[in-house]
């Protein structure tokens, strides 16, 4: 009421949720050392906060065994004065991060198979979306949220469904998912995520210039995106590939029960084990003979 805190909102006030990949197995093999990486990122976060005193930054660590919030500018206290060595918030962010990594290590059971294991992107993504929903709930005036995935680990197949769900949910609530992928080969997950939610997918070529990428592309607030041309995410090929031979197909058979894809006709669905009636192909054609396209 009378003593209500007066909040001001400009069109470009934004909530930036950063998903930080802290998968140790990736970093230990990455060309860009984590220390460099993090300092780029911190600098970027700092600028974002500086751009508007209402800008809000939330950082979620995407660990190998767990995910957790490691920074939230809205809850954090002293922001203004720094120790002089680095912006104030950085120090307590790093503090949290350190704790997080330790916890992550404790959870480690070992026995991770060859190759770089994936980190729990689906988890952090889901958390980010929950947080953003909370912002939406906070009332008619809220910062414009967007998600930025700073990711390097390869995709984890077992997360696919979860991540897809998250992506669609984000799309529904019109939250763009930007993704900056610093791993070796491109990430199918993030490409789809950015493509579907209208975010930007980039794979920086010059890793030392990471900050420049961040500040040039990802710093753009949603309001300005209306008037700027950002790098178009590469058109993702939406052809599927079959479960049976894993080859890309442009025509295939779908199991009506579990929607798994096959390149040829099977008697029985290998995924859900249901046995098929007669081949649908002729049913289809006869059906569309009946079903008549109006010209």
């Amino acid at each position: 009421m009378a003593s209500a805190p007066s909040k001001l909102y400009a069109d470009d006030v934004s909530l930036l949720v950063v998903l930080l990949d802290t998968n140790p197995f990736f970093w230990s093999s990455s060309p860009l050392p984590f220390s460099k990486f993090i300092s780029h990122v911190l600098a970027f976060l700092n600028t974002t906060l500086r751009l508007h005193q209402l800008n809000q930054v939330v950082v979620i660590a995407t660990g190998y065994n767990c995910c957790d919030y490691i920074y939230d500018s809205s809850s954090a206290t002293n922001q203004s004065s720094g120790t002089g060595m680095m912006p104030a918030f950085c120090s307590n962010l790093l503090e949290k991060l350190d704790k997080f990594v330790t916890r992550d290590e404790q959870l480690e059971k070992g026995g991770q198979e060859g190759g770089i294991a994936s980190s729990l992107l689906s988890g952090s993504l889901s958390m980010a979306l929950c947080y953003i929903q909370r912002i939406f709930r906070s009332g008619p005036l809220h910062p414009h949220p967007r998600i930025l995935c700073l990711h390097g680990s390869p995709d984890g197949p077992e997360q696919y469904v979860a991540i897809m769900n998250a992506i669609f949910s984000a799309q529904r609530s019109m939250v763009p998912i930007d993704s900056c992928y610093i791993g070796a080969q491109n990430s199918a997950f993030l490409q789809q995520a950015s493509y579907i939610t209208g975010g930007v997918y980039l794979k920086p070529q010059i890793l030392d210039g990471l900050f420049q990428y961040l500040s040039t592309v990802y710093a753009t607030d949603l309001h300005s995106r209306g008037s700027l041309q950002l790098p178009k995410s590469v058109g993702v090929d939406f052809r599927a590939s079959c479960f049976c031979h894993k080859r890309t197909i442009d025509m295939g058979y779908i199991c009506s029960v579990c929607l798994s894809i096959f390149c040829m006709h099977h008697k029985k669905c290998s995924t859900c084990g249901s046995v098929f009636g007669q081949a649908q192909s002729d049913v289809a054609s006869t059906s569309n003979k009946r079903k008549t396209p109006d010209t």
Partner: protein
Amino acid sequence: MPQVRIIARNFMDMVAALPAMKLDHLYQNAFICEAILRSLPPLAKKYVIQMCYIEETIPSKSLEEWVLPDGLSKHRVAIDRLLQLRIFSESFDRSTGTSYRLNPTFQENLQKLITYGAVLPREPMPSSVTARLPSLQELENYAMQKWECFLLQLINSAQAEKMTNISPSMMRIFQRGLLTQRDKEAPRLTESGFQFLLMDTNAQLWYIIREYISNSEEIGVDPADLISFMLELSFHETGQAYNMNTLDEIQRSTIKDLADLGLVKLQQGRKESWFIPTKLATNLSVSLTDSSSRKEGYVMVETNFRLYAYSTSKLHSEILRLFSRVEYQLPNLLVGAITKESLYNAFENGITSEQIISFLQQNAHPRIAERTPSVPENVMDQIRLWETDLNRIEMTPAHFYDEFPSRDVFEAACDFARESGGLLWEDSKKMRLVVNTEVHLQMREHLRRQK
């Protein structure tokens, strides 16, 4: 409409207005850089950021590459703003056309800001010295109440009470524009004064500060210094205590004045005295755009012209009184009605219907704020209508003639009046007519001649 609006928009225009020398001087201060950065339009911000580490000049073409066709206007605005603030320096050469580069001092400060964060010239005082500091909430209330009481001063002074505890320097500021004090009689609010009351807090704040600065300019204080000080102040952390000794003479006096407005809270310890910046102070460097500036509202207007205000503040009730008739006042609810009369005296005070409506909309209670329109159409229309009513009737000084000796005299008079284009009204039965004043004299002449 009201000039007040235009000037009160943003504090930064003022900075922009400063001469080149001064600007460059200002940019020495990291805080000003940040404040300026915040105040920029979104696109401009982005440009600055992305050029923050680039020392080469960037051809304008490569910037435009990024702009979508319908973003062009925004783009230009941004660039102009940057040039105006001398953050971009323009250079031209044959091959690449015009190209920009970031103002070196600005750039340097920005980089510092990014890597090291901003460092205040003065440390907050250790809690050992300052016994107990007011909590943020208390502080906020303090600021609010301070600010309100200052506004009340304005209103009350209009209601012919004598100004209390406002320093003369502040008083002088009100003299500029808000109040008119004719000799002898009590100071009363000017039109802009009334409009001022209906503005939202930040607009008011900026207005006052601007006035304050330009005022102090007359005393011979360098506005640049003031500005930089105030901006700096806005970055002090609210609720922390800062030692007065860290301030120089001028700053100290300024702080005192600002304390009157509730931007800072002064406290006296055993030996040192210190100031505690409040929320108002931090708002100084806030960038503001139209969609922005929202307080939690408290007013509900119903289609039957009733108006409920859930508020405890005296100020609110006073402001509402400006244009509505208050019917009940509960401890935290005020029930009023918008009536023709109440509006009329608002209009007389030079408040426009638009201001009233926008006020009602800006302060709409959250319950109805999400409805559109938050103020019922019929009320809005009626308010506008009543305003136009005022402009409908026009007065012309005139003279009334009757008791003509004879009809033909009357006829003649009418004709004469008609010829001289001064006939306003005639009643041939009762033999009366009304002519406007210009014609009056000739008319008299004419009638004399008749005799």
